[in-house]
């Protein structure tokens, strides 16, 4: 019987010819990623080795990545001490895929992994971060795990008890209209499937609109697949995957690119015509509370955030800069910009995007997870409303349970910064130069 991309990948990883949905496998891990919560992983890892008489060595330091992004530079003595503990561990274990608080190689884990070529098609990737689903954009079976699970991976080099998931095939045809982006597509899909509709399943993305989409856009889709509960979002690798890994990530080794079987069996197929989409907004307090922008346009917002592992890439910043160039962030609304990595930060500096954004009144912050989860910078005041290109709008998410978060694309965020209210970028009437 034909296999889906996930079935085929997991079978291959385990050296099998078949993997049926529901089979329980223990695939070897190609890459194991953690961020600051590596401090907890180290704690659990040490506990595994306690009393065994064995030296606590990770199974393979080349397959472990540690990236500081959640609270950089450290916001508290506690974080700084955890980061110090991780640095010492990295040195002791000989881990080289380590990205410290640095303006050259630093950034948010879900951008650092792709841009450094750490993720390849066919890989099994685990990360102690739920948005590890992102890396399915490069054809990896990639998913989030808890810290103790990661400690087990560091010890054994494989991930225990992975059930081969059922697959929801998502076919996206048509061309995106002006002002509509991959973010609108994934919000629309999550609204349709609901927040738990893909729990224990994966999305597999197909169709002309996906084939024509850049890796940056595919990362948005896979990043947010977890918001429908999906274990992973997957884009079977194609020419764009090869191009990105070769040209942008500097990968020289041959890639193992394959697709699902033509007679693969899917749990469900969802067809979307991209040309019929309009900008989408996820309203408080669940990501599946999605409405077309016409239903919420005019809602006043006090803080706008552009950036994060979802929408902090160069194309996102440039879309925002094009809209904001020669215009002004309206008084009473603040705009915070968080590029996804320092490489992107420097590229956006070179292209002039950051200068245009700052000249319009945006605050350019350093790459990091910052306000997305309310741990570092950009907290909301009581009863304030935020509009963000990030991935979650749960109650309390941006540091305050008495505030609201709406989610949108970078274009909607930029247009709304000019008016101070949720604004469809296609209807923006403030002329450029009208400062």
């Amino acid at each position: 019987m034909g296999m889906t991309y996930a079935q085929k990948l997991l079978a291959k990883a385990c050296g099998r010819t078949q993997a049926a949905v529901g089979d329980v496998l223990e695939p070897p891990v190609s890459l194991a990623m953690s961020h600051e919560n590596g401090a907890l992983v180290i704690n659990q890892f040490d506990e595994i080795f306690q009393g065994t008489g064995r030296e606590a060595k990770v199974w393979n330091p080349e397959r472990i990545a540690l990236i500081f992004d959640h609270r950089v530079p450290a916001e508290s003595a506690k974080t700084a001490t955890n980061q110090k503990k991780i640095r010492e561990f990295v040195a002791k274990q000989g881990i080289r895929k380590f990205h410290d608080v640095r303006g050259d190689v630093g950034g948010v884990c879900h951008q650092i992994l792709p841009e450094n070529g750490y993720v390849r098609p066919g890989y099994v990737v685990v990360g102690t971060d739920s948005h590890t689903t992102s890396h399915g954009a490069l054809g990896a079976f990639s998913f989030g795990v808890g810290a103790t699970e990661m400690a087990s991976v560091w010890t054994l080099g494989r991930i225990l008890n992975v059930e081969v998931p059922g697959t929801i095939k998502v076919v996206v045809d048509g061309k995106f209209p002006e002002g509509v982006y991959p973010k609108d597509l994934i919000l629309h899909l999550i609204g349709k499937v609901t927040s738990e509709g893909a729990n224990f399943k994966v999305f597999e993305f197909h169709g002309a609109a996906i084939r024509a989409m850049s890796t940056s856009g595919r990362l948005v889709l896979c990043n947010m697949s977890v918001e429908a509960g999906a274990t992973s979002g997957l884009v079977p690798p194609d020419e764009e995957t090869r191009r990105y890994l070769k040209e942008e990530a500097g990968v020289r080794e041959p890639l193992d690119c394959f697709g699902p079987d033509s007679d693969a069996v899917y749990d469900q197929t969802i067809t979307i015509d991209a040309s019929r989409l309009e900008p989408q907004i996820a309203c408080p307090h669940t990501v599946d509370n999605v409405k077309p922008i016409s239903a919420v346009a005019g809602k006043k917002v006090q803080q706008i955030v552009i950036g994060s592992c979802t929408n902090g890439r160069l194309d996102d910043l440039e879309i925002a800069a094009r809209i904001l160039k020669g215009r002004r962030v309206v008084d009473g609304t603040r705009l915070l910009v968080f590029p996804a990595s320092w490489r992107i930060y420097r590229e956006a500096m070179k292209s002039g995007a950051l200068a245009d954004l700052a000249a319009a009144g945006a605050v350019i912050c350093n790459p990091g997870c910052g306000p997305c989860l309310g741990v570092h910078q950009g907290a909301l005041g009581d009863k304030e409303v935020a509009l963000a290109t990030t991935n979650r709008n749960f109650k309390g998410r941006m540091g305050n349970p008495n505030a609201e978060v709406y989610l949108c694309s970078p274009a909607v965020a930029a247009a709304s910064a000019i008016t101070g209210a949720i604004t469809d970028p296609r209807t923006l009437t403030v002329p450029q130069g009208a400062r």
Partner: protein
Amino acid sequence: MAKGKVVLALGDDISTDIIYPGRFMATVLPKETPQFAFVDNAEFNRRLKAKEIPAGSVIAAGKNFGCGSSREQAVSCLKGYDLAVVAKGIARIFLQSAINLGLNIVICPEVEAAAGDELEIAEGKVRNLTSGKSFAITPLPKARQAIIDAGGLIPYTRDLLLARR
């Protein structure tokens, strides 16, 4: 068989941001996380810290409990008080971490339970002793039972490590 009173009855989509807000994520150790369990629910958090809630008490929830962030603090903070969770559905990462840490977690798609109800968690079903109704439990994935039987993923992994030459 375990009995416990429902001390908190919640709806659908209770995220890990509600169970353990992101702003306390710098605290990681299981012995330190319980102080922040449901911290934005000030009264419940106070009762937990004042030890007014006995071990074995139950959090009843709707669908998709534990959705969102993979932060394990959201599991360890509940485990610290030895609470049980009975939910209509549980998000994947939370479910796996609960098994790994030995948090008593029960998937019970039809469960009806209000705060104050007395529940009995028995083989295959949850009995609401207050309403007299019984609800079927969805068994955990089979392969997970070995981890539970071993007392959690740490001893389970330790055994695998020791079995290796």
